[in-house]
């Protein structure tokens, strides 16, 4: 009986871990707080409602890349790891160059002729809304704030003669399985062969974090999110960076930054799946709509062509190396676990 108790210990510990991890995360949601990322001099880099863990990264509007070193309550301390042009990831860049030499170069995708593939827009958190307009941060029954913002984004892209599928599938009632359900929406959308997918969200921080003025008009800035835990990370990251570059050329600062969070946000389903935060629940919805209009005007070319494939491809190569390494490690562990120690000794 005593032995039975001991043997169940690892399982019990694991179960506890499973329950305590999400419990820690949940704290942020219920009390309406958010995270603040600060640099070495305690200057604020960004504020976001995303749960921040050590290793998360943030690329600012000015293309400075910070990596989170420690998290104390709601403050995440980050260190500058890359400034524009300093080649902070020299090793990977060298590796990329080496691998690229092995891959035959391809022409950039045609921008005019040829078959046109649609852009798909959907909403994992289909109920997210804007307080000043909807009067609540979450509308469950459909026709929510983010769906209206998605609609505006779709219309602006259509004005550029791009085919757009705006999927307004509801993923409520609210619970922790929204991404598991929107995964099925993504699977449905993928059957329509989109060139890119955009999951439109909104953040949950004070309004000023996202407020900006463009050409004399008030607009809500946009934050891009890339999941760190997905095999398509490099491909999605390259795509996000290209989108940011395109918008930066037209409206510098409209893209607030790129957050590299601990999750996958279904980005493992496609190499060009963009998660965007159109303002915060505290912003006016019209500002968010203005924000995505400007975004579409500046980024439509990259979005509708899938960007320059070369860069994306090298990202995928890098990811492939990681996958190969992980598989090797997995095989080794599997081999060790399944080794017949008794027979080995006899031999």
């Amino acid at each position, binding site marked *: 009986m005593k032995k039975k108790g001991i043997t169940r210990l690892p399982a019990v510990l*694991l179960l506890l871990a499973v329950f305590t*991890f999400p419990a820690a995360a*949940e704290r942020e949601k219920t009390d309406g707080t958010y995270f603040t990322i600060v640099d070495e001099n305690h200057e604020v880099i960004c504020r976001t409602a995303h749960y921040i863990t050590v290793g998360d990264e943030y690329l600012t509007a000015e293309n400075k890349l910070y990596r989170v070193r420690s998290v104390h309550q709601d403050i995440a301390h980050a260190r500058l790891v890359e400034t524009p042009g300093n080649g902070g990831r020299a090793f990977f860049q060298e590796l990329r160059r080496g691998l690229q030499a092995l891959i035959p170069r391809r022409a950039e995708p045609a921008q005019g002729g040829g078959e046109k593939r649609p852009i798909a827009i959907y909403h994992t958190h289909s109920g997210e809304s804007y307080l000043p307009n909807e009067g609540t941060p979450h509308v469950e029954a459909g026709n929510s704030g983010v769906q209206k913002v998605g609609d505006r984004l779709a219309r602006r892209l259509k004005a550029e003669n791009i085919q757009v599928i705006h999927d307004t599938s509801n993923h409520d009632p609210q619970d922790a399985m929204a991404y598991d359900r929107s995964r099925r929406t993504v699977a449905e959308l993928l059957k329509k062969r989109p060139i890119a997918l955009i999951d439109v969200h909104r953040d949950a921080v004070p309004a000023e974090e996202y407020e900006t003025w463009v050409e004399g008009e008030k607009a809500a800035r946009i934050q891009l999110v890339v999941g760190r835990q997905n*095999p398509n990370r490099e491909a999605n990251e390259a795509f996000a960076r290209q989108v940011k570059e395109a918008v930066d050329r037209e409206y510098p600062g409209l893209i607030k930054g790129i957050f590299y969070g601990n999750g996958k946000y279904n980005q*493992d389903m496609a190499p060009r799946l963009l998660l965007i935060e159109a303002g915060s629940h505290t912003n006016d919805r019209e500002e968010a709509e203005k924000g995505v209009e400007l975004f579409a005007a500046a980024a439509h070319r990259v979005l509708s062509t899938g960007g320059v494939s070369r860069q994306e491809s090298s990202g995928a190569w890098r990811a492939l190396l990681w996958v190969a390494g992980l598989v090797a490690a997995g095989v080794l562990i599997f081999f060790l676990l*399944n080794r017949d120690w008794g027979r080995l000794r006899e031999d």
Partner: protein
Amino acid sequence: MEEGRSEIITLQVMVEECKTMNLGVLLLLGAGILILLGLAQQVLDRLYLNDKQALLFLAAMVVGSFINIPLYRGTPPVSLNLGGAVLPVGLAVYVFSRAGSRKEVNRGIFGVALTALAVYAVSKLYFFDTYAGRVEPQYIWGILAGTVAYLVGRSRRLAFIGATLGILVADIAHAVEAGIRGLSSPARIGGAGIFDTLVLAGIIGVLLAEIIGETRERIQGGPAEEQARGEGEG
């Protein structure tokens, strides 16, 4: 053989990627699918399927991923995916039907009920997907199901049954909840095919039970087992 299988599933994506080309992305997709299929085959090995049957089953799941069977067209609409729900659930029921003793059957029913309850309760209590924390939310369900099932039945098979049917029941509960509240939220059960949480939970469940079981045997059962075998053979 492995390449042949990967081709079926990525066909659609590959055709598209070939046009704008992307050898890296293609290889990455291929690698991801091979890993998933490799893991799935390991799992099927432990569920009364031999290698040939396992391959056929996987092929059927891959092809079935493209087929959705509508069950209800009202509010909310409900559909079942052939590869992502019908086949894995069918396998779970089959494995369950082969349970040897009444004790095993009771444990199985208890395990499924407990897993479904745990998955549904955790999904309602914790909104961690919004603020994804330390563990990728999609893996939580498999970890949870594998752990609960292992605690109840201490078997890989029960871990698979618990995880698969647990997610199914949680999905049904969600659809019922949406219906009661008059929400249009579609219940596309297993809708992401072989990439669906229902499939992944089953795989993670069995692998977790495997790891816990093997670790436990190494730590405690291992030496005793060796000794026993040595005596028997000697």
